[in-house]
């Protein structure tokens, strides 16, 4: 009798649990539909496909309902949208709470460094720039995604993730062919200019009279410099407002370091040919032989203090002082980006497209009343040492990164969130908000075609092959967190005049060599550095490739082309 009563009780519990579970499932499905109808539109998927994709998330997240995950990313529009809107949607659809921190990029780097070097578990996932790919494949502290997706993460890997649709996987794959990170957002640093001013007949005539060629998009730094001088010195003011032919920033801090390490030396032409990064010498000036970094200084076969690097720094300082608005040397990356809104800048050689959304707001002096911008972006001009086949700019690929020191049971729900924010259900809407595209399907959508006139050339750039010439830091840098401070610690010494450009680049090369030597002695990483012996600079400078000997003429004749031709080069 007693056993009979227990059986009835168990059956009741079973049915009550099932009913509760079904009602919870219904609630999640209802919320999924709500989000599809009210937020995730447009999408490259049909509504039916979106429902199916979100159904998968509802089922896959069952074991993790009620858990909370902590993730961290850089503070840009795309990630703010994720933190404010997508984290909330994810909670309502899956029952998993997400604390999505948005902070300075250097904070992200310091925290990931702390977790993997001090062994302290801090976050369940990082949206970490792929600039650390050289660190990750060597340290083996990151969960290799291509392995994770097939093994322990198989059941939580989205069947419709469609990796082939991502445009940035080559940036997040190690030389070992393993995918270590999954891109979440991408933006490039491009040439930015006031298309309305460049089209003015009076200014075009004046420029031609002074320089002997057309005012148009500069192909080389000589033309950029001429245009900078033209607007700051010869034009001076437009419609009663003081205007400047150049904009940059020089405040000592991590963002100044990126201004150089991201691509500046490669744009000058300091490195070797090769994509996504120069081989054997990359844009940091680090030479690699058989996967091992062998030196950054010219004396060891690197290019960090070679003539091209010194030329790059010299031009940076010269333009900042001569042609940028007064006080630019006191600004950081964010402040400088905001200043372009004022409408007194004619061109900017190193402009991050992450600011596109902020610079297309209606009511700004750089936007027409119909919402189309008065400015455009185009492929960046290159320096005197640059040759065809070399990287020509930087592309940031903020990518989902999971550390081995994070418990697997926290990685799994975090991986679900990561896939949710890059899923096709969500991705096109996120791209429209943040303008940091990651999927071919989004880029090729009609929606992006329709938006194109309002985005100043961003869509044209990303649809062209040019996106393969704008690349992140590559695998030559064996420990990004350890080595990157060298840039912001030494460059300001040349900006203030404490050191000459050659002395500052010598100091940087010494810093980088010291760190490589430290890693060599430590011997803890795969493909660890093995420094070349020092030789006379002439030994390396007169060999083919990088480091390159000083050019007799670092200012060849300026050359400009039309926007269509500039993009056409990369078709």
């Amino acid at each position, binding site marked *: 009798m007693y056993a009979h009563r227990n059986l009835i009780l168990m059956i009741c519990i079973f049915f009550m649990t099932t009913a509760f579970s079904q009602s919870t499932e219904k609630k999640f499905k209802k919320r999924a539909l709500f989000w599809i109808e009210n937020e995730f539109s447009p999408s490259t998927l049909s509504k039916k496909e979106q429902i199916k994709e979100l159904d998968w998330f509802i089922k896959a997240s069952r074991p993790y309902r009620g858990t909370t995950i902590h993730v961290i990313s850089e503070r840009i529009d795309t990630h703010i949208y994720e*933190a*404010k809107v997508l984290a909330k949607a994810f909670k309502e659809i899956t029952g998993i709470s997400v604390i999505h*921190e948005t902070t300075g990029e250097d904070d992200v780097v*310091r925290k990931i460094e702390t977790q993997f070097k*001090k*062994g302290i578990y801090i976050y369940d996932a990082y949206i970490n720039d792929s600039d650390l790919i050289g660190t990750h494949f060597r340290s083996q502290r990151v969960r290799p995604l291509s392995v994770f997706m097939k093994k322990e993460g198989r059941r939580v890997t989205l069947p419709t993730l469609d990796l082939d649709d991502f445009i940035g996987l080559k940036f997040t794959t190690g030389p070992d062919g393993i995918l270590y990170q999954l891109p979440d957002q991408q933006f490039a640093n491009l040439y930015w200019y006031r298309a309305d001013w460049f089209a003015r007949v009076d200014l075009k005539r004046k420029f031609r009279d002074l320089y002997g060629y057309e005012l148009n998009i500069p192909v080389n730094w000589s033309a950029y410099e001429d245009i900078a001088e033209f607007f700051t010195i010869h034009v001076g003011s437009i419609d009663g407002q003081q205007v400047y032919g150049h904009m940059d920033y020089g405040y000592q*801090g991590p963002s100044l370091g990126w201004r150089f390490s991201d691509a500046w030396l490669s744009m000058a032409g300091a490195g070797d040919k090769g994509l996504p990064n120069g081989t054997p010498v990359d844009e940091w000036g680090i030479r690699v032989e058989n996967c091992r970094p062998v030196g950054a200084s010219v004396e060891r076969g690197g290019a960090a203090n070679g003539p091209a690097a010194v030329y790059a720094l010299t031009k940076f300082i010269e333009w900042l002082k001569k042609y940028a608005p007064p006080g630019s040397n006191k600004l950081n990356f964010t402040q400088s980006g905001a200043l372009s809104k004022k409408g007194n800048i004619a061109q900017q050689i190193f402009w991050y497209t992450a600011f596109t959304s902020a610079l297309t707001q209606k009511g700004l002096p750089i936007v027409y009343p119909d919402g189309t911008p008065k400015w455009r972006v185009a492929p960046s001009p290159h320096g005197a040492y640059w040759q065809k086949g070399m990287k020509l700019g930087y592309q940031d690929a903020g990518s989902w990164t999971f550390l081995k020191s994070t418990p697997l049971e926290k990685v799994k729900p975090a991986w679900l969130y990561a896939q949710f924010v890059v899923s096709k259900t969500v991705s096109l809407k996120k791209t429209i908000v943040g303008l940091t595209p990651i999927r071919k399907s989004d880029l090729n959508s009609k929606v992006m075609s329709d938006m194109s006139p309002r985005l100043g050339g961003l869509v044209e750039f990303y649809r062209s092959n040019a996106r393969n010439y704008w690349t992140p830091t590559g695998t030559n840098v064996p420990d990004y967190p350890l080595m990157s401070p060298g840039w912001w610690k030494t460059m300001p010494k040349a900006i203030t005049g404490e050191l000459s450009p050659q002395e500052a680049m010598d100091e940087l090369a010494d810093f980088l060599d010291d760190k490589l030597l430290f890693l060599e002695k430590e011997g803890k990483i795969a493909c660890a550095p093995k420094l070349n012996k020092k030789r006379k600079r002439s030994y390396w400078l007169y060999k083919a490739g990088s480091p390159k000997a000083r050019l007799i003429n670092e200012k060849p004749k300026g050359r400009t082309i039309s926007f269509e031709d500039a993009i056409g080069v990369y078709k």
Partner: protein
Amino acid sequence: MLKIVMFLFLFSSISSRADLTIYTSELPPYVMNNGESGIAVDILNELFLRSKIKAELLLTPNARAIHQAQISLSSCAFPIQRSQKRESEFSWIGPIFISQSAIFTLENSKVDITVLDDVGQAVIGVLLGSSDITYLKNRGLQVEEAHNEILNARKLRSKRFKYWASDSLAAPFLAGRTGVSIRKKIIFRKSLRALACNKNLDPKIVKVMNDVLTRMYKDGTIERIRNKYLKTVAYHSNK
């Protein structure tokens, strides 16, 4: 200003003038009893002992501590939230510990917060000098700064504001002292808490201390110290 001489070890290979002055403020459970105990104090104690560095601890308000570390050589502020904005202003030794910032309301508040931004345009009370201020402002939120956290707890009680952003472990201690019953609504941020030392401090000292600290993490010293205080923390957090 209360002055407590902590350790009297001299690391002769560095310099005979290797003394450090550490400016800090009461932040239970990290810095308690006028700087005589607490998680962070015990960690520092061990760190200086192993590094053989002589240091003195001075209690001073947070904003002033930061200022002192900026202007005087051989000075550090502690425990400071390391951030990109501050990165180039100091030499960093850390993290001494990882803290979590949370949004608190009065105990009986019914507001539901899924993501930080659910706070909307309501004012959030924050400690002056805390890097949470920049963090919250960058997310488009409104803050009101106070010179100390006791004042923030009191303002919450008198409903001068609805939300208080503070350290997730310290706030329950401080609220308890002022007799305010609070509820943690959401943790919104983790911070590396470190010694923010004058940027011209001898790099050898910085390296020695960072190396010792790494060893303290790896040999379990940091965890042991944290665990020692966990019971007290749990008691206050559950109140």
